[in-house]
Each structure stands twice: as C-alpha cells, then as structure tokens.
C-alpha cells in the first residue's frame, strides 16, 4: 500500500497537498466543488489582529503564466475568525493550518496567545513575508533580525505543541540565512515561497495597474524560483520540514517541489484557474510517485539531492 502521509513538525497529515494561504477563501467557497476532508490541510488566509479592509482595487493583474495580487490581507480579524470560520471548518472535519500575520512583533505575540487555546488546529503558519504591506523595508522576512523577532514572539507565546511554520519571501539576497535564523528562533518548519514582488503598468492608462502599485507575483511563472529556494534551504537544513508552494498546477509540479525537498505542497493560484485543482494535483501526484516506484511520499522528499555514483558532479 502506497503511503501518502506526511508531517510538518509534530503535525501529521493524511496527504501532502494543501491549499495555499489566501487562495481558498474561508473554505466554504471550495466546499461547493469538493469535500474539504480530501485536502491534506486547508491553510487559512493570513489573519491579523483587527478587521482589515485590505487594499483598494484594482488588486490584480494577470501576467504571463502568473498574476499579481495586492489584497493587503483583507480579513475579519482574529476574534471573528476564531468565532466563525474555525468552528465551521472543524465541523466539516477539515485538517486546519491557521496562517497569522502581524504588523509588529507584539502583534505576532498576541496572535500566538490567542491561538494557544484553540483546539482542532494542526499547525500555525506564520506569514512574516507579505510583500504587500506599505513599507517594503518592513517586511519581517527580509531581514534576519526582524524575521527572528517575529518567530521568537510566536514561539514564546504559543505554548504547547502546535508546530510553527515560518513562511518566507524569496525577495532576499540569501534565503538560507533567513531560514537558519527562523529555525534558530524556534520554527518547526518553513513555508517556501511567498509571492515575488512585481509590478504591471497598464499601457492604456500609463500607470501601475494595481492601486497599491506593486503586488505579489504568483503562479507557474515563479515555480523555478520556488524550486530553487526549496532546494537551497533543504540542502542547508535537511532536517527542517518544508511546506513548498509557488506555481504548482499539476501533479508533476508538486512532484518537482517534493524532489527539491518539500514534505508537502500548497496550491494557490492554480485554484483560481480551476476550483478543483488541488484535488486533481493530489491524484496526479500520487500517480507520479507510484509510477516512479516510490512506496511512500517520504522517500521522494528531497530525492533530487541524492548522490549518484555514476554521476560524479552531483
């Protein structure tokens, strides 16, 4: 029997295909198209302390094999979220990973404290890398010190056994350095990658297309960047579990990220093009793994790093 199970930190998942934060609504919207229990996990939209309107529109622009978004973390705030969305997801029997995002180290601390009492959650994804916040300089994941501070705040306040997955941006000179820092600060796993900072100028209006000017690039266009980041980090930190994401649109793509070193993958933009993408990808991934002779997902994780006697330089 093929074993599709995986783990991130202490958390176990029946299969390795998750939704990506911010790309699955509250779960309700997708449940029209499939049963949420089919997912490895649903990763919720990054939730902040307070309700948030998000950015002005236009918030999106299609790009070659990708898209830009600048949602600006629109959401109901942690209290309403815990009151409404989480109970509903629990009722569905969904495996839940909650994503949190803060504007200050203190925010992360408070969010973590609010999460510690919540049951039925498998892991906490800590988004320290949203490129849509107004001051790019303040993206936590861009600098080792701020990345560390955010994760330490969560670690100190979360208590118990909820695994912490730190979500990093690829928009840095050295992603391995940031990864090492957040792992040292207490992250149990890493989510790689968030969107890549980009811009589209509307050549009709001759202005940036997005009201927020810059936005996050996602979709197949960035998959090579995701694979590279996952590969580099897995090589440097082979024992740290990685939740991979970035342009996964098929089982082949999911397999690629797993070979690079991801223990699970999240599907974001592909869901916009196809509501059942996650399910299709899950099925295709299982086929790929089996057809390559793997008995379990785990054997395939990071397999592209293996040394081979007849290929000297690898």
């Amino acid at each position, binding site marked *: 029997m093929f074993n599709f199970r995986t783990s991130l930190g202490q958390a176990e998942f029946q299969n390795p295909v998750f939704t990506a934060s*911010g790309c699955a609504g509250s779960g309700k919207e997708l449940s*029209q198209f499939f049963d949420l229990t089919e997912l490895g996990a649903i990763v919720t939209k990054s939730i902040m302390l307070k309700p948030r309107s998000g950015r002005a*529109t236009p918030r999106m*622009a299609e790009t070659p094999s*990708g898209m830009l978004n600048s949602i600006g973390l629109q959401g109901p705030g942690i209290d309403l979220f815990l009151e409404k969305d989480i109970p509903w997801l629990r009722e569905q029997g969904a495996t839940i990973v909650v994503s949190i995002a803060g504007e200050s180290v203190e925010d992360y601390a408070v969010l973590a404290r609010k999460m510690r009492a919540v049951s039925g959650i498998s892991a906490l994804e800590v988004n320290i890398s949203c490129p849509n916040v107004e001051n790019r300089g303040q993206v936590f994941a861009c600098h080792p010190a701020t990345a560390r501070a955010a994760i330490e705040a969560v670690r100190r306040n979360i208590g118990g056994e909820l695994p912490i997955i730190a979500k990093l941006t690829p928009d840095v000179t050295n992603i391995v350095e940031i990864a090492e820092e957040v792992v040292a600060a207490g992250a149990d796993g890493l989510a790689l990658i968030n969107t890549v900072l980009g811009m589209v100028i509307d050549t009709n209006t001759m202005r940036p297309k997005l009201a927020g000017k810059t936005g996050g690039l996602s979709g197949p266009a960035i998959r090579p960047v995701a694979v590279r980041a996952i590969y580099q980090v897995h090589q440097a930190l082979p024992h740290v579990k990685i939740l991979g994401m970035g342009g996964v649109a098929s089982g082949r793509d999911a397999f690629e990220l797993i070979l690079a070193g991801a223990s699970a993958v999240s599907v974001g933009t592909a869901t916009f093009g196809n509501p059942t993408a996650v399910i299709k990808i899950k099925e295709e991934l299982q086929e790929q793994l089996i057809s390559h002779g793997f008995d379990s997902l785990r054997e395939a994780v990071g397999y592209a790093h293996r040394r081979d006697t007849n290929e000297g330089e690898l």
Partner: protein
Amino acid sequence: MTGINKSATQVWAEIISNKKVGAYHHIVFSVGEIASSAKPGNFVAIAVGGESSSMVLRRAFAIYRTFDRGASGGLLEIVVAPHGAGSTWLTNQNAGFKVDLIAPLGTAFGIPTEPVRALLVGGGYGSAPLFGLSEVLKNRGCRVDMVLGASTAMKIYAPLDGKRSVSSLTVTTEDGTTGITGKVTDVLPGIIAANEIDIIYSCGPMGMLEAINNISAELGIMHQCAIEEAMACGIGVCMTCVLPIKGEDGQVRMLRSCIDGPVVDGESVIWNSKRSIPEGTWGAN
C-alpha cells in the same frame, strides 16, 4: 452572503455555434443541467488559451440566455467582445471545440413579487443579460422598457427575438450611427417620467452604472446593476474583485463582486471609490 454558488458546476462545454454579430460574437455552449439552474444576472467563468496557455485566469461572461432542452441537454449563450488575448482567443474557437466552463456564478437580478414597471438599461455587450431578465419580468406581468447605448451602432447588441419581449426599445449611440445621438443617461429621465418607472436594472461599464445611479438616486427609484470588476477566481476565494458596499447596518465593507455580486443594489455601492478605500470602511486603517 447569498449562499455560496450553490449550483455552480464545472463542465467541458462544447461550442454549438459561434457567430459574429456586429462587434461581438454570440457563442452557444452545450452545458447540460447548468441551463436549468442559471438565472438572469448570473455569469460563467471560462478557461482561455488552451492547454499550454500563458493565461492562468478564467474570463467571466454574463449569461445572455439559457435553454433547457431536456434529454438533449441545456444550452447556454454568451456575447463576447473580442478585447484582449483571452476574449479574442474565445471568439476564435469554432463549433465542436470544448471549453472548461463553470456556471452559474454570482447573484441574479432580484425579481419583484408585484407587477412593476421596469426599465432595463444596457451599455455595449451589457445588454446581453437583460433580454433573459425581460422575459422573466414579462412573465411576472411587469411592463418592460429598454434603453441600450454604445459608442457606435456596431456595439449595440439587440437581437430581434430579444426585442420582442420589451414594450419599448430606445437606442443611443455616441456617434449617432444608429438611434439617438448621445448617452443612455441623456434619455433616461424622459423615459422614466413617461413610463412611470418603478425599478431600473442596468448592466454595462462602471461609469455608466454610476451615472444611472445618480439619476435613480435623485428620483428615488430602485436600481439594481450588474457590475464588472477584475476577477481572478470568480468563485470567491481570491478577494481581488471587491468593491465598497454599504450593508443594511450602514457599515461599508469590501465585498466580493463575484459572490455578493455581480448584481448589487445601486444605492449600496460607494461609487467612484476606485483606487482608494472609502473612509469608514470596515477594517480601513
């Protein structure tokens, strides 16, 4: 929230016909049971560009009308303006080709329980969903008048059989190539007064909808409009398609036009807020 796309279904829909009509393409799909669940105002979302497409997002199109053909399966029709790469690709596909289509999506026009006097106003291809609406209204005993406007005659979409369901049809074009020279809003006040209009239904460019809403607000007439915001997913999961809408509690929230729209009450919309968040919006900071 109106119950999230309860009957939305994803199908491979075969193109039954694709005909150029003026500046547009009238495309008919075989869609099976979807035909019976779609209501005027709903839209479809179609994947574009084929297998190796660089376009990762679906395109939304208002449903022009549907036919429930029983055993032989339902038909669904749309009217497409070839604009950028996605819509142009779609208009280039021939009968027999199958597209990946999701429908019905979004809210529908609200149908009054009483027989009222309704004015339907369409701009460009925005007329498409109004013909199905006029059928429904007529069957409910409403009087239906219609105003269609566009920049030029080629962009007026008004098929013969559609016209039959309305009591009067007024056409305006900005260049005067057909009908009255001017904009729909030039003729609205007169038609509203003459026909004692109770409710306006509109569909077209945002600027037109706003202008209509200014008139309806001034005259205290109900106004339902089908808005068109850039949508990445069409099914409520991406939060790109939002616009500021005032709820019954008076609170403005950024609501998704794909789920809480495309049909919304004109007076609930905070118009002309493009590229900024109106003050006092829930969660604005």
